[in-house]
């Protein structure tokens, strides 16, 4: 058991525990914080896979942007409903059953798949600098999806604006 493995297990444990905390904590703000934590831990995983760029983006976009958004929304609406929501979950048992069934199915098929087995057998070295290749391929081969994605983002921004905009009532200037 080397240091890498220990680090991996610690990270994994943190990820799982924080995820559980996300879905179970009664206060949404706390959930949001735990979500941020789990996203951050994922970024560490990325680094361990040698995807530094991705990890950076994860931290910047996710942990920075998304969580901020969520927190804002929670704060905006907290006064309205939070107190009414005594019970934060509904139908825990079927949800638990369904999600665990899903989990075990995934585990079963990955375990039995010979392809995964062969992949697991040939674990390559994780140490290589990919950021350059990544940027190159992103702007050459994947440029069309990239641009489409930018369009999508634009649409999302506009859409979010339109949706969240308060309708101006008559007589209101």
């Amino acid at each position, binding site marked *: 058991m080397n240091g890498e*493995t220990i680090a*991996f297990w610690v990270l994994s444990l943190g*990820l*799982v525990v924080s*995820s559980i905390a*996300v*879905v179970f904590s009664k206060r*949404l703000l706390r*959930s949001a914080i735990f979500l941020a934590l*789990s*996203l951050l831990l*994922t970024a560490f995983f990325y680094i361990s*896979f040698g*995807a530094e*760029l*991705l990890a950076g983006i*994860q931290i910047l976009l*996710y942990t920075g942007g*998304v969580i901020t*958004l*969520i927190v804002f*929304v*929670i704060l905006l*609406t907290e006064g309205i409903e939070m107190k009414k*929501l005594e*019970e*934060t*979950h*509904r*139908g825990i048992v*079927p*949800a638990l059953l369904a*999600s*665990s069934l899903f*989990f075990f199915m*995934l*585990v079963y098929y*990955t375990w039995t798949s010979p392809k*995964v087995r062969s*992949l*697991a057998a040939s*674990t*390559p070295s*994780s140490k290589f600098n*990919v950021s350059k*290749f*990544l940027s190159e*391929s992103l702007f050459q081969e994947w440029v069309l*999806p990239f641009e489409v*994605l930018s369009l*999508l*983002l634009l*649409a*999302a*921004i506009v*859409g*979010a*604006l339109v*949706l*969240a905009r308060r309708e101006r009532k008559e007589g209101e200037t």
Partner: protein
Amino acid sequence: MNFYSILWVAFLVFSIGLFGVLSRRHLVGVIMGIELMFNAANLVLVAIGWAYGVLTGQIIALFAIAITVAEVAVGLALFLLIERVRKTVQADEVSLMKG
């Protein structure tokens, strides 16, 4: 760092997110569950890319993150709209799709 174990951790996170989506009553809670699921999926993508030694996994994960951001933005906007129009933030009270 076993390939299997990384997969299974991701699956576990995914299932936890799924559980959140299925059981959370607050809409923001549901959105957070979705985030967890996305995150787990990204993790698997990167892991498989890593196992193959190709960059595609990372690229797709990159796109996925961007899409997630868009989704969260729209989703939260919708949440605000629902909260304003329907005066509720509970997922189980929004039942417009009932036939």
